[in-house]
């Protein structure tokens, strides 16, 4: 049976790991390559790096981090943050990323999704969607790391990018991110039940039950978390053991 994937996410700023609560209050917490090695050996199913480096002058550091991580970790690595062009995607893949996640650039230029999927294969292209509740069963997407609102409906957008060839959706709830009160399972199930491609749940996980709910209520194919792993509250093994006890298929 196909396993539900547990994906630790590292926010990387100028080559260092940070994690924000509600996208602010960054706390430095280590070397991404060392962190990645730990997650790799602990049984993470994939790794995700989100580059939040503001200045493009400092982005070279990311390529080095990706390269070193790929040389040490033999599990899939997704890299996102500031990906704007086919050339950006190409450079990340060339340095060892397995998938590239695109957020703002896909919203501003939807053609990029189809072009990237055609050139590198759907499985390489993850579309990251930051969604905020806007009413009953309605969410709008935000761009620029959650700073800029749009009037684009999250569900319609996810359907559109799936049709254009995106390989999966990394769906972050803006309302839940950093709150530790659980994923927005209504958002997840609304999107997941409307598209064929996998949805990765993100934003809000605070305890083991939340992981299970993301699968059982949200219908997610994969579960992404950052701070809960990062500060050692739970290990990957804790999560997988718990999910297995709930009869959710995981790779032990």
């Amino acid at each position, binding site marked *: 049976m196909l396993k539900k994937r547990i994906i630790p996410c590292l926010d990387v700023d100028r080559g260092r790991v940070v994690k924000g609560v509600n996208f602010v209050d960054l706390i430095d917490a280590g070397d991404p390559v060392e962190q990645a090695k730990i997650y790799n050996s602990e049984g993470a*199913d994939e790794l995700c790096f989100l580059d939040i480096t503001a200045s493009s002058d400092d982005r070279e550091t990311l390529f080095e981090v990706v390269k070193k991580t790929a040389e040490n970790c*033999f599990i*899939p690595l997704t890299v996102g943050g500031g990906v704007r062009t086919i050339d950006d995607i190409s450079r990340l893949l060339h340095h060892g990323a*397995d998938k590239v996640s695109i957020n703002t650039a896909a919203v501003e230029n939807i053609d990029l999704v189809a072009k990237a999927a055609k050139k590198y*294969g759907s*499985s390489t292209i993850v579309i990251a969607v930051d969604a905020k509740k806007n009413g009953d069963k309605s969410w709008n997407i935000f761009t620029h790391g959650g700073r800029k609102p749009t009037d684009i409906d999250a569900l319609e957008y996810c359907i559109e990018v799936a049709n254009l060839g995106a390989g999966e959706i990394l769906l972050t709830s803006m309302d839940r991110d950093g709150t530790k009160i659980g994923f927005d399972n209504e958002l997840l199930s609304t999107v997941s039940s409307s598209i064929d491609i*996998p949805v990765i749940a993100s934003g809000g996980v605070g305890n083991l039950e939340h992981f299970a709910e993301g699968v059982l209520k949200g219908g997610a194919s994969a579960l992404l978390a950052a701070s809960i792993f990062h500060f050692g509250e739970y290990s990957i093994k804790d999560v997988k053991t718990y999910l297995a006890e709930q009869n959710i298929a995981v790779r032990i």
Partner: protein
Amino acid sequence: MKLVIINYGSGNLHSVHKAFEAVNNNLENPYEIIVTNTPSEILKADKIALPGVGAFQDCKNAIHKIDGLFESLEQVVIGEKKAFMGICVGMQLLAEKSLEFGECEGFGWIPGEVIKIEAPADYKIPHMGWNEVTFRNHELLNNISQNTDFYFVHSYYFRTQKNENCIATTKYPNPITAAVLKENIFGTQFHPEKSHNNGKQIITNFLEWEPS
């Protein structure tokens, strides 16, 4: 001994190269690993690895765009029977044809065709993630337990014409070819380079393999 990893611009080239290097460094008699698309280098290979991600036709075209590349592969693999390993689309290319984005001819080294995964509506496509593999005993699967998880990412799969060429399968929920084998030609649908220690074991087995 030379192991050649074919470089035709495939997205997973770097990952495959690094995984082979990591495994190779632990071998008693390590290979000289060469990443190349130069036919004269390929002709000197003792073993060949062909990575591949993306669309079948794009990979096929990328190979044929490089003058003499396919001919040198054919010479070494079919003519001289050197051990070959294809990964993901690099494995699918061994088929006679693929039906992805219309019909496209493959290498035709193993009878069969590459077709869309058929699964119930609640199964996500692509088939993406870790899934259990069962297999027929063979030295290429030494030190791997039945039902071990490997990492898959694909929407199409290689339906071999002969059962004997399919040596490993996974289920989604219908059986899907996970690995093919014909004489000196081996291929995996999953990504050993992304399947952690069990993936490295498959690469080790391939490097130690001496097809008869």
